[in-house]
């Protein structure tokens, strides 16, 4: 049985590896969430793995919210006796993320899925053929909002 991670340990570890002040948010029911800068993501995940043994990446969720149409929100859902989520915001015009595959190889398919569905460029990993979309898909990332941002 996995040792349960404590939210205060999660916050302490994330805070120690980020430049900007951060705090736990309780806006996602059942999850302990923190918003971080996209540039800090790789280092923070590496620290969480090394210091807290938080290795189980359950999923990566991306969304283009109607209240933030010019941004894409990407959530990394981890689990260790409870749910822990790291949230990053990317500009919708040019979303770029650093791959976690060098530290969590299981991030492979999750990253490929959000890259295809939301048109996110993932750096620091090999180019791969589409995982889910057909080879001749030319209609743009299918999960992006079509309406113009206000």
């Amino acid at each position: 049985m996995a040792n349960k991670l404590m939210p205060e340990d999660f916050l302490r570890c994330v805070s120690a590896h980020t430049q900007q002040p951060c705090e736990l948010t309780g806006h996602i029911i059942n999850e302990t969430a923190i918003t971080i800068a996209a540039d800090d993501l790789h280092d923070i995940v590496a620290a969480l793995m090394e210091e807290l043994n938080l290795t189980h990446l359950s999923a990566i969720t991306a969304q283009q919210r109607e209240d933030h149409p010019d941004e894409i929100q990407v959530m990394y859902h981890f689990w260790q006796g409870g749910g822990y989520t790291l949230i990053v915001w990317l500009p919708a015009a040019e979303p770029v993320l650093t791959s976690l595959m060098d530290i969590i190889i299981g991030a492979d398919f999750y990253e490929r899925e959000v890259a295809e569905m939301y048109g996110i460029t993932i750096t620091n990993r090999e180019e791969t053929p589409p995982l889910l979309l057909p080879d001749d898909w030319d209609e743009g990332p299918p999960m992006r909002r079509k309406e113009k941002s206000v």
Partner: protein
Amino acid sequence: MKEKITIPIGPQHPLLKEPISLRIDASGEEVLGGTLRLGYVHRGIEKLAESRTYTQNIPLIERICGICSHVHTTTFCYAVEALLGIEIPPRAQYIRALLCELERIHSHLLWLGVLAKHVGLETVFMHSWHDRELVLDIMEELSGGRVSHGINQIGGVRFDVDAEHHPMMADKMQKLHERITQFMQIFEREPSIKARTHGVAPLSADLIRQYGLAGPVARASGVDVDMRRDDPLPPYDRLDISVITHPDGDAWSRTYVRIYEIYESLLLCEKILQAIPEGNISVRARRKVPAGEVVVRSEAPRGEVVYYLRSNGTEYPARLKIRTPTLPALAIMPMQLAQIHVADIPVVLAGVDLCIACADR
């Protein structure tokens, strides 16, 4: 030095029950590795969900998978109910869990038959699929559906477990107990099963953790995690869950874990039927769901299911993300294939218990 050849398997292939494209690199009898491609049953369910009301989404979500349909709607309903701030009656919680366990039994029996067929035991395949009918009969009696049960609704369940159901279920479960005991004996004694599974495609606990696998495949490598015990939805927090693990991580361990999980699920069904409280089976739920976000995890027959749901205060979900257990199981497959002989490919594919419809969504 033997020449490297690429063996294409799928998207349509007699070995596969669902479409997936595998490209296996081999040199003689030795498999060097492989790549895979999904998307042949991608239905865009996450996007479709945004254009349907919460209630309309239940039949849609039930069709993510033709085997573990109930656990998907259960997880979705608990997510919506969390946003609504309602707790469903305890009786409804137990009925949901009963169906989840019956689904686990029928999923594992189906898998057992597929594995038996791939190792050349056609008789065991016939028997296990025959016995799976007993579970499907119970589910049909309870809900009217063998695979898509339509039993969940926002706020509870639609069908009750009546007094007349109990003798029918007790009779069929007794038969299943006897049959599972026989399967245990066959799989532990039959030399051909041992020969085809012992030491085949082992996965270390480290590798399981790196790939984020959960469920029977992880437990067969000694990773002692089960969402029913470690992050339980009700009523699992009130039930004593016995988690089956095996340290070896090979095809045999995955067989062992699943057979004993069938047995444990049968015991759990009996516990649920003994503990099921009297009372209502549903509460009234509003159609508009307050704005908010929630993550709900549950243990499907193949492992961890995660639902992220965001509501913007309307009758329609603003975002529904579904994580199914087959996706990480597929990611690890090239690694598994790289260690085996060509003749063992079916055993490896069967051992992981793939559900491509789940992975594609």
